[in-house]
């Protein structure tokens, strides 16, 4: 893998040194309901952070904020490389989120879903990398079947494949082991470990074994009605 990197959105690098994912006093309300209150955190290259909290405490919301997929109503989140903030474009290219709310395209096959994501984000994925990804998540034999026929466990593996397909320096996993069997959990462990040499990883979970992958935890207090 090349040590040289560029921050062009077309081709996110495989490893970015001195990367930091930062949230500074970030809040998010939905109308008068404050889900995230003035929260600050930081994750640096090679680190894995677990975000824990009761249901409704805003774990998914926080992950979307960190991914840049949700606009904060207060404060900011950003990604820094060597002390300099990256642009919105670049940040979009650098982050990927796997969450239960994200469905793949049911009428496309697994391979087509992966190719779609890769091609749209930049850089046509070659057949080899699609095959590698399918092998990684243990779905090689189902690559050319429409995703509609997959079980919930398989769908979760598809979500993981889609998230790592873009080789994002910033990987965000929301309940990654949901619906997964023992082999599936081993896959999550493998992905998280691999991410250490690619950038940062944030896991939102209530599952103790998922949280065990992380170097440290961040707990979101209470649920929204406080």
């Amino acid at each position, binding site marked *: 893998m090349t040590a040289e990197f560029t921050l062009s959105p077309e081709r996110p690098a495989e490893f970015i040194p001195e990367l930091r994912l930062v949230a500074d006093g970030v809040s998010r309300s*939905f109308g*008068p*309901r404050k889900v995230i209150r003035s929260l600050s955190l930081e994750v640096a290259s090679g680190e894995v952070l677990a975000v824990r909290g009761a249901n409704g405490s805003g774990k998914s919301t926080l992950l979307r904020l960190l991914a840049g997929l949700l606009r904060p109503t207060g404060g900011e989140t950003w990604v820094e490389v060597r002390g300099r903030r990256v642009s919105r474009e670049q940040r979009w290219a650098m982050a990927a989120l796997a969450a239960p709310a994200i469905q793949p395209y049911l009428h496309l096959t697994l391979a087509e879903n992966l190719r779609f994501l890769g091609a749209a984000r930049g850089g046509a994925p070659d057949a080899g990398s699609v095959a590698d990804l399918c092998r990684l998540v243990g779905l090689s034999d189902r690559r050319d079947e429409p995703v509609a026929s997959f079980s919930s466990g398989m769908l979760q593996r598809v979500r993981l494949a889609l998230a790592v397909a873009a080789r994002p320096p910033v990987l965000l996993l929301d309940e990654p082991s949901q619906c997964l069997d023992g082999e599936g959990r081993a896959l999550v462990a493998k992905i998280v470990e691999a991410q250490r040499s690619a950038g940062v990883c944030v896991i939102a979970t209530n599952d103790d074994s998922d949280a065990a992958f992380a170097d440290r935890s961040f707990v979101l207090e209470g649920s929204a009605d406080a």
Partner: protein
Amino acid sequence: MRIVLGIWMVVVVILALLVSPPLLGLGDAGRIFYFHVPCAWVSFFAYAVAAYCGARYLLSRRADWDCKSAAASQIGLLFTVLATASGAVWAEAAWGQWWNWDPRETAVFIVLLVYGAYFALRMSIEQPEQRAAISAAYALIAIVPAIFLIYVAPRLVESLHPSPVLPGGEEKGSIEPFIRNVLFASLAGFTGLFVWMWRIQTRIERIALGKDAQL
């Protein structure tokens, strides 16, 4: 301010209904001119205000701008209905028919449709931030058909409407200074009425936004 506005409007009404000479060969029915034209003006003005506040919301993302935009739209809708109704009364008196599909009538009708669509869209989106952004975007998009119908359509088609009565309320061609002055006074009064009502409605919107939590 309320008091000044109240007195102003009373004076305008007296001038329009009692003091002004009969208008446009319609006898007393023509006096509706002093109310119809300002209502039409306010309906377009209110829409412009709503669109402006929507744009400000999109730039700043502060909920207060959305409250102002929604409030302006609601008052605007009211005045549009009044303009359409008074226009129909005038049409009946002048040409014997309640509705003629002439371009200006159609333009006001389209503005009514735009407001209707705006509210239908607003009421169907639950999340306040999304609702605000989408309402603002719709208000801005709908400016295009509104402008088109107000300025372009009449020029493409022959019109029955007293020509040319621009929505700004000014009438070209010769009219007595007195009538013109009363009309301007009425315009000013109605605009003041709009501003007053708009501010009240904005306060209501702010409270309603706060109340969302209790549902």
